[in-house]
């Protein structure tokens, strides 16, 4: 078991400052404590004993892999776990995602997933949507086209899990 150094830096703002381009960008807002904390201490990590839906998604370009499992009560998510490996962005996105799902309906989750996807793809109005909560810490990924798939991998698995069960 690896041990992680304690996070000591103060939390910075959760939305990337505007920038004239990716190069020379200050990435401290993206790799902030909240993201690194989810990366190093992921929430809801593991496997469910009685999953109603299990979907694994891979990004063949970088080798990231994420499995999302759902336990459902009708169309309401009762429990969720994720497993897999990848970069800080993919793991933090998965971890923060799982925190938002319990007790919510598939339709409700679908709306959040759509808003989150729009934010990652660069829609600034989505980035201002309070319904995304902590997830807005990932808004800076919108300026990193080559990393958008990392942020969306877990959500893609989640969406497929909900569809496959519904």
């Amino acid at each position, binding site marked *: 078991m*690896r041990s*992680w*150094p*304690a*996070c*000591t*830096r103060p939390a910075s703002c959760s939305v990337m400052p505007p920038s004239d381009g*990716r*190069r*020379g*960008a*200050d*990435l*401290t807002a993206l*790799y902030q404590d909240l993201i*690194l904390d989810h*990366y*190093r201490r992921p929430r809801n990590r593991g496997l469910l004993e009685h999953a109603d839906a299990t979907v694994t998604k891979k990004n063949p*370009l*970088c*080798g*990231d*892999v994420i499995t999302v499992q759902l336990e459902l009560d009708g169309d309401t998510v009762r429990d969720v776990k994720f497993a897999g*490996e*990848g*970069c*800080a*962005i993919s793991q933090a996105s998965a971890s923060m995602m799982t925190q938002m799902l319990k007790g919510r309906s598939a339709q409700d989750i679908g709306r959040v997933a759509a808003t989150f996807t729009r934010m990652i793809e660069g829609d600034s109005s989505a980035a201002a949507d309070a319904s995304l909560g902590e997830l807005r810490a990932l808004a800076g990924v919108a300026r*990193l086209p*080559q*990393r958008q798939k*990392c942020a969306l991998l877990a959500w893609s698995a989640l969406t497929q899990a909900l569809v496959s069960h519904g």
Partner: protein
Amino acid sequence: MTSLAPRSDFPLLAGDPDLVYLDSAATSQKPLAVLDAMREFQSRDYANPHRGAYELSVRATQRYHDARARLARFFGVADADACIFTRGTTESLNLVATAWGRANVRSGDEIVVTRAEHHANFVPWQQLALATGARFRIAEPGPDGLVHPDALRALITSRTRVVAFHHVSNVLGDTLPVREIADLAHDAGAIAVCDGAQAAPHLPVRFDELGVDFYAASGHKMCGPMGIGVLLGRRPLLEVMPPYMMGGDMIEFVHDETSSWNTLPHKFEAGTPNVTGAVGLAAAADYLDALGMRAVQTHERSLARTAHERLAALDGITVHGPGPTERSGVVSFTVNDIHPHDLATILDARHICIRAGHHCAQPLMRRLGVAATARASFYVYNDEADVDALLAGVHAARELFGHATV
């Protein structure tokens, strides 16, 4: 250490002075001489070769012919017609696996590769084995993570038909003893196929002295354009191989029921060839020979050694592959718990280009027990300041991730 080639020779690097380009193992930047040669050909001698009865087409044909002769000289091939132009290493290897493989490999035969092959020298053989019922055997790396000739020797039997291996690994940067492995293959009655994609740009390659039957290389990794490469082969094998692709240029006579094939090299060059690419690649050969391939090798190895030693001196950094004095210009590494993609993003913000990922070598990555590594690779235009920038970037990433900076 200064760069071997002036940065000003490379328009992209000259136009972007802050850029630290450390991904030449993926593709190299282009010298102006190569761009000029391609433009000059298209501006002066451009026509479809081998076809026209007019003088312009004859000139285009001559330029293509001259380019082939230039590449044959660069690669130490006496028989220039055994230097086949392809789109690159991937097509060259697929050509051999398909044209030679389908004609010569049968159920019960064996194909030997190494675990450290690029997918382009792994998947075509794996699929040939599946299609023919041959047994696909993988030579494993030793405890040091590197493939050694003994691992191949242990797998090669009288059933072996092909031994396919890399000259220089694109992931780890180690170099295999090509002649020794070719001899092992030939002693067993097998052919030897060598992936030279990471060797041809970086060290002197004399095909006729290497002893292999086929050798594949890509132009774009050696200062040439994308979309052109070579397959070097031994004439007796090429003569009896069926064609790979059918079409114009590669035929002799086309009857209603049958066809016959053109002579070498045209038999393996169906369709209008990439003459502009060949002219550019010939100019790249001129450029590299003017630098001297021995000097290219020495320069890159020196930079890679420095990068290796400085990275390995930091806490929490693993440098994969051979020791600092044994590697070509490729340095694969991992940093603490920082995923290579996060590292690449952080370096990118500092204008530093590295590769992060599985490097098209998933079978090897599984064995190394890592999903991805970061890879910095050096070429003629890199200098010690690029190594400094890489190290400063790695320090910055460690700081961002909350690691103490050593």
